[in-house]
């Protein structure tokens, strides 16, 4: 691509980055004397595709332009020039979450704080009918003083369209996609909630969720694999966060959080608990917990127990950590000869003899009938 000096009315000052869709420039808006981030998108070559793309781009960009929120990157302007569509956005000074995770692990408090801010931003967008469709660490910007902003609102849909080939195969890395998105079904705000759940999981556990070498395997994991509760991977994570993550990562959108604000409220409660703990233990909030946390070994990790409706004969239910069942397991592993006989035997039908000897009602009837029969016989013949 030839180096451009101006796009629309924006004067290009430098390049900020390159992505799958195009280049992001640092640019100046001469009208307002404002420095902006100018995101360019290469339009399709064929006329029909271009027309469709063009239409959707303007529709989405217009919707995103209406989102003015402290946790969403503001879109100032959008337009088209030659083969490029562009978006002029607020220029952010910070690091994206993907880079931040590469540098060092986040503390649980930081992770929950970030997720809560993202959930707030999503809640605002969803209320206005805008779904992001591509929530992932690379689209979450961390600013100074802990502020978080969601990037690429509105144009994510353009990109997700690019992920699909004519055969319907999803390309790219669908690790943060919801099961319905992976399946190519229509998505709504609950899809963003799933993606945020996956991001939160990764922040809390420092391990990628649904990871696999091949894309189809990732897609399969997203659709079928139950996650290990974060508190089992990272003991610093409070149990309540397990519930938040579990609810956000429900495969069925109907039982997932229905509203990002609801998730944000739960995350705020967790945050208050975590900050309370920190205050109580006198810990420095910025302490890097990776130095002190003892991680459980992989062998001890158990996936999230399924709900009763999803339990089939081959579904493994993990042992409860609250109760010691070792004695009974020991008994099953090394049964006595009596146990062995009893464990394997099907219930026998209760015959007349056992009924008369073991059941109180029939026993009474039998005893009374027998004794009165003897008495009757004595009267008759005695």
């Amino acid at each position, binding site marked *: 691509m030839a180096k451009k000096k101006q796009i629309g009315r924006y004067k290009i000052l430098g390049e900020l980055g390159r992505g799958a869709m195009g280049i992001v420039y640092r640019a100046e808006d001469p009208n307002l004397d404002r420095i902006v981030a100018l995101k360019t998108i290469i339009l399709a070559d064929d006329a029909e595709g271009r027309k469709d793309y063009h239409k959707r781009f303007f529709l989405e960009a217009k919707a995103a332009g209406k989102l003015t929120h402290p946790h969403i990157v503001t879109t100032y302007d959008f337009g088209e020039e030659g083969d490029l569509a562009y978006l002029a956005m607020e220029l952010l000074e910070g690091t994206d979450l993907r880079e931040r995770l590469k540098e060092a692990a986040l503390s649980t408090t930081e992770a929950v704080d970030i997720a809560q801010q993202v959930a707030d931003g999503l809640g605002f967008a969803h209320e206005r009918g805008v779904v992001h469709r591509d929530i992932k660490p690379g689209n979450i910007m961390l600013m100074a003083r802990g502020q978080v902003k969601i990037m690429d609102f509105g144009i994510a849909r353009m990109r997700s369209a690019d992920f699909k080939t004519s055969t319907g195969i999803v390309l790219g890395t669908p690790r943060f996609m919801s099961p319905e998105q992976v399946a190519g079904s229509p998505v709504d705000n609950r899809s963003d909630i799933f993606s945020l759940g996956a991001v939160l999981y990764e922040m809390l556990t420092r391990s990628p969720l649904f990871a696999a070498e091949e894309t189809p395997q990732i897609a399969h994991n997203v659709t079928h694999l139950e996650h290990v509760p974060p508190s089992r991977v990272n003991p610093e994570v409070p149990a309540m966060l397990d519930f938040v993550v579990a609810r956000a990562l429900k495969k069925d959108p109907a039982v997932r959080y229905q509203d990002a604000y609801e998730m944000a409220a739960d995350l705020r409660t967790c945050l208050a608990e975590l900050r309370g703990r920190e205050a109580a233990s006198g810990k420095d909030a910025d302490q890097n917990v990776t130095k002190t946390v003892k991680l459980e070994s992989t062998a001890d990790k158990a996936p999230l127990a399924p709900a009763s409706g999803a339990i089939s004969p081959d579904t493994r239910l993990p*042992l409860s950590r609250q109760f010691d069942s070792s004695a009974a397991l020991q008994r099953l592993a090394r049964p006595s000869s009596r146990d062995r006989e009893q464990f394997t035997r099907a219930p026998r*039908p209760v015959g007349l003899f056992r009924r008369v000897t073991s059941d109180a009602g029939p026993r009474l009837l039998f005893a009374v009938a027998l004794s009165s029969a003897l008495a009757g016989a004595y009267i008759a013949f005695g």
Partner: protein
Amino acid sequence: MQEFARRPVTEQARLRAQLEAVVAVTAAELPSASRIVLDASDGTAIVVLRNPQGALRLAERALTAAAAGLPLSAGINHGTVQPVGGRNGEGMVGDGIAVAASIAELASPSRLLISRSFRDALADVTPGLEAALAVAGTFTDPGLRRHELYSLDKHRTRRRERRYVALSAAAAIAFLAAGVAFRVSVEGQQNVVDAVVAKYRDTAAQGEKYVRGWVEKVKF
């Protein structure tokens, strides 16, 4: 726990803590060598070894204890289970658990549903206890097998006890009456009455003599 996944997370955490407290209290009744407690995301599964009456009492007590605010339902089944270990830690699998879970899913809040196989196991171990189980209907599990379900009805046990007492009384009356009737038919009514009166007098006289003997002994 009914509708667990749809509840707010704060409530889920509260309900889970409440359930654990209920299970801790109720499972303590069983010897530790005969119960295995497993986690399900919306509840708890308890495998009870060779103690159907204990399992029934546990479920009953859990439902009673949970009556205050815990939307609990319970299902009991008798079936195969197997411990599994491996990469993902220890746990259990089996048809016994799967069917119990499906039954619990089907039960309304505060209700206990019991499978036919559990009823048979209960009858095998303690004949008579199964009388407390009333037919609640049939259902088809996800594996397309039909199950006859029962619910617990303590009144049935009391009704059954009363029925057996009444039957015993009726049997006693019938046998005694049959004896008397036979005697009357053979000897004639007047002779039987005279014999009974004579027998009564003899017995009364003997009784009187016996009592007097005791009175004399006490006086002495």
